[in-house]
C-alpha cells in the first residue's frame, strides 16, 4: 500500500475502510493507523460527502406501484387432478354446428313423411315424440 493508493481508495470508496476492496483493506487500515495526520484532510472531505449521501432520502415505491407490479406477475395455474375444461373450448363452436346439422337432417327426414300425409295430427305426433312428450299421459293427468 502506497500513500497515493490510499488517497485513491478514500476518494473512490469514502472514509470508511470497510468499503475498500477487501484485498487492500487491511493494509489501508494499517497505514491510516500509522499516519493519521497524513490522511486527515482526505478522510474529512470523504466523511463530509459520505454524510451528505447518507442523508439522501430513501426512494420507496407507492402502494399503487407495488400493486401494479404484483398484478403484472404470472397467475397461479389450476391445481393438477380432476378434469378442468378451459374457459373457452375451441371445439364449442363445432359442437354447435353439429347440433344444427343434426337438427336440419332430422327436419329433412321428418318433413316428407309429414307432408306425405295431410293429417296434421300425425305431424304433431312426430314432433311430440321427438320432444319426448306423451299426449296420452298428459290427458290422463288432466283427468280427461
Amino acid at each position, binding site marked *: 500500500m502506497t500513500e497515493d493508493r490510499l488517497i485513491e481508495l478514500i476518494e473512490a470508496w469514502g472514509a470508511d475502510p470497510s*468499503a475498500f476492496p477487501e484485498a487492500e483493506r487491511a493494509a489501508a487500515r494499517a497505514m491510516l493507523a500509522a499516519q493519521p495526520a497524513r490522511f486527515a484532510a482526505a478522510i474529512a472531505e470523504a466523511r463530509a460527502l459520505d454524510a451528505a449521501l447518507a442523508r439522501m432520502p*430513501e426512494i420507496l415505491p407507492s402502494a399503487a406501484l407495488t400493486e401494479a407490479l404484483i398484478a403484472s406477475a404470472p397467475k397461479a395455474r389450476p391445481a393438477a387432478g380432476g378434469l378442468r375444461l378451459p374457459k373457452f373450448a375451441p371445439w364449442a363452436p363445432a359442437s354447435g354446428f353439429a347440433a344444427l346439422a343434426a337438427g336440419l337432417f332430422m327436419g329433412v327426414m321428418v318433413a316428407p313423411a309429414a307432408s306425405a300425409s295431410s293429417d296434421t295430427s300425425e305431424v304433431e305426433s312426430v314432433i311430440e315424440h321427438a320432444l319426448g312428450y306423451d299426449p296420452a299421459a298428459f290427458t290422463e293427468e288432466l283427468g280427461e
Partner: protein
Amino acid sequence: MAFTSDLDQITRAAAGDPAAVRALVNRYSPGILSLATRMLADRAEAEDVTQETFLRAWKALPGWEPRAKFSTWLHRVALNLCYDRLRKRKESLPGELPDLADTRLAPHEALDQSQRVSAIEGAIGALPERQSAALTLCALQGHSQAEAAEILEISVEAVESLLARARRTLRAQLLEGRTSS
C-alpha cells in the same frame, strides 16, 4: 442465505404463488425504483422502468437459470432500460447539449438541509450516466464492489474509477455550496 431463498421464491413466483410474487416485489422494487429515479431524475419515468423491469422478470422466471443473482440481473435490466431512455432523450434533442443543469447554488443562497439534499440529488442527476449508476449502486444502495461491477458489466477497477470521478464532482459542488453559504 439470500441466494437460495431467491431461487425458492423465483420457482414459486413462476408458478404464480402470490406470496412469492409479493416477496420478490417487496424485496427488489425499492432498489430498482431508486436506481431508475437517480438515473432519470424523473419519478414517472422511473416507475415505468420499474414496471418494465418486473414485466421482463416475470417473463424470464419460468426458464430462470441461476447463472447470476436475481438481484444483479434485475438491476442490469433496469439500468439498460434507463440507458435506452437517456439515449432517446438525447436523440430527441438534436444539436442541443446534454441536460447538465447547473446545480450549484448562487452565493446568496444559504444551504439548509433540504437545499443541500436537493443540490446533491441534482448533482447526481447531472453526472455522466455511468458515474451516476456507480455512485447509486455503491454509495447509496450499498452493493458490493463485485455486485456493482457485475451490474455495470465492467471490472471492479473501472467501478472504482467511475466512483472516484463521481465523488470528486460532488465534493467540489458540496464545497462550493458550503463556502457560498
